[in-house]
């Protein structure tokens, strides 16, 4: 399998208030793309650092073995490119990220330089019986740290270099200002809500390269969850909330049983609502009264004890 990743340093808007962020990205998105390969594949990755960028970059694949996950073989300056090859020996979902060394590493990661690889087994996903899915949804979560001015307003920087010192100071407090899915508050909601239908099975791959997260599907469950993301382990079943360790990607399988709007959140609800870690699923289909019904619509509190 061959992949090309082009590194793009760029200023982006990460919320509905127009807050800007000096991002570093693989292929322009925050986080970078999900790469899907199969067990035993040789994965050849060409990394390009155009001369319009200002910094050296590289890539560390958690799915790869040796050379710091490839980081040691892939450090390139602006105007350079490099190709590495690794063998996909272990199945599951894994994070990849930039790791140029020192304080550069966490800064590049929280600036957007991370993504996920899914190595599928040669045989089927299973838990005693084969597990099939209809759609894969990739949720890339990103914690973002944006300095504020003395008035409490988010600062905007002209360049990465200008943003560096303030940003690292924010990062060292470990409290992000934004936690977003797909690069922006609300990126997977409204018109861009994820879609499915009753009876369809979704495989939700959730990656977080830096910080712990706890996905929860409001009104649904994790039928089968590979919380650590590694398919050689049996999945846990019927979970309400699962845990994605910072620096890993997990996978959850769910068959939608009721139509409607589902919120997929990080169930630290402060992060879901205030920091932005919310996505929506819009699910079409036929309602099942047996699973859920409104027996009596909201009304004033009944004074009769029998009602």
């Amino acid at each position, binding site marked *: 399998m061959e992949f090309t990743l082009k590194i793009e340093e760029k200023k982006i*808007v990460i*919320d*509905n*208030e*127009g807050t800007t962020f000096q991002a570093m990205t693989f292929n322009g998105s925050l986080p970078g793309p999900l790469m899907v390969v199969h067990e035993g594949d040789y994965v050849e990755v060409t990394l390009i650092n155009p001369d319009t960028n200002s910094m050296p970059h590289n890539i560390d694949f958690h799915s790869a073995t040796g050379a710091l996950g490839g980081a040691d073989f892939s450090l390139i300056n602006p105007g350079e490119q490099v190709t590495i090859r690794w063998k996909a020996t272990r199945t599951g979902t894994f994070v990849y990220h930039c790791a140029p060394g020192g304080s550069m590493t966490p800064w590049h990661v929280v600036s957007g330089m991370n993504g996920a690889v899914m190595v599928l087994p040669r045989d089927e996903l299973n838990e005693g019986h084969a597990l099939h899915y209809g759609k894969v949804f990739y949720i890339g979560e990103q914690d973002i740290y944006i300095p*504020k001015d003395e*008035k*409490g*307003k988010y600062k905007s920087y002209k360049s990465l270099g200008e943003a560096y010192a303030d940003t690292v100071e924010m990062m060292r407090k470990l409290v992000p200002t934004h936690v977003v899915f797909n690069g922006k508050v*609300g990126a997977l*909601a*409204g*018109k861009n*809500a994820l879609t499915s239908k009753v009876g369809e099975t979704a495989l939700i791959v959730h990656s977080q390269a830096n910080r712990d997260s706890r996905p929860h599907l*409001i009104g649904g469950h994790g039928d089968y969850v590979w919380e650590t993301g590694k398919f050689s382990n049996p999945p846990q079943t019927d979970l309400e909330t699962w845990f994605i360790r910072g620096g890993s990607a997990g996978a959850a399988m769910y068959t939608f049983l*009721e*139509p*409607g*709007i*589902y*919120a997929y*959140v990080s169930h630290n*609800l402060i992060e*879901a*609502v*205030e920091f*932005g*870690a*919310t996505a*929506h699923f*819009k*699910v*079409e*289909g*036929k*309602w099942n*009264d047996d699973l859920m019904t*409104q*027996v*009596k*619509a*909201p*009304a*004033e509190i009944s004074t009769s004890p029998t009602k």
Partner: protein
Amino acid sequence: MLITFKFKLTLACAAGLVGPLAAIPLVTMSDARDDQQAIIELHPGTVSYRVNGDFTHAGKQATAPLAQKRFDRPLAIMKHQVSSADYQRCVDDGVCRALDDGAGVVVAADRPAVKVSWHDANGYAGWLSRKSGETYRLPTDEEWAFAAGGKFKDDVVVMDENDPSKRWIARYEREADRAPSDTETRPFGAFGANENGLLDVAGNVWEWTSTCFVRHALDDAGNVLSRSPNCGVRVVEGQHRAYVTDFIRDAKAGGCAVGVPPNNLGFRLVVERNKWLGLQHLVGRVAPGLKELLWPVRTWRSPSRTIRPGPAFRGFVESGGPIS
């Protein structure tokens, strides 16, 4: 602009000789923004109105009824939303809560005050009333719909008693059919005027109303059996009708709240001018020509930039006020 204003001024002065506006000299003008904070008087009329709130019938969610709402008296409402600069005057007076400049609220005479709660809006109305000697208040949802005219959206959703998800998804899709990221305020008029001359109705600022959230139970004939109001939640109007808790300044989505929230929360006020409006209306009925002569302009200067020499004067002067 200035010429237009002077023309209006002449007319108003001429009218003032014979009408109840006699005591208004309308002598000053702070700058050329003569259309700012103007009040628009809507003639009596009727609005077809989807009643706000939630409705149930026999213990199930029901479709909100469509009502014809008749306004027998004229309605005087601000031409544009209260500006952040006007709101700031109330802040400077120590009455209103400061605007959230950290959240990027621009304080300018031609930009709306946003990120304000229902309490902030109500506080401003009270302050303005005290300053001006007139009664300013938030419009009711019905009044807002009447003034909004064609900009008022019927928010009925198809109700399927056997499948609550249909209504849910329909509402979500309708709310999602716009840009939640458009929060930057624009100069007044950027979203155009409606047929009544109100600016920026259903632009990117939603407006607070005085109407409480009410749950209604309907009987078989569709009549209201009971009302259960919650005044901790008020109706806000704009591109869609929303119900927002009164102390919220920034309606957020996320978590269980799966709708798309209003982009900005702001407001405009109605002014009670019953004495004069009633008389004007009466004259208008008896002799429309005379009314046109006596009250030739549909809009007039608001409070904040005219001087107040006599008891019938409508307005007050703030710093930076009149330039003679």
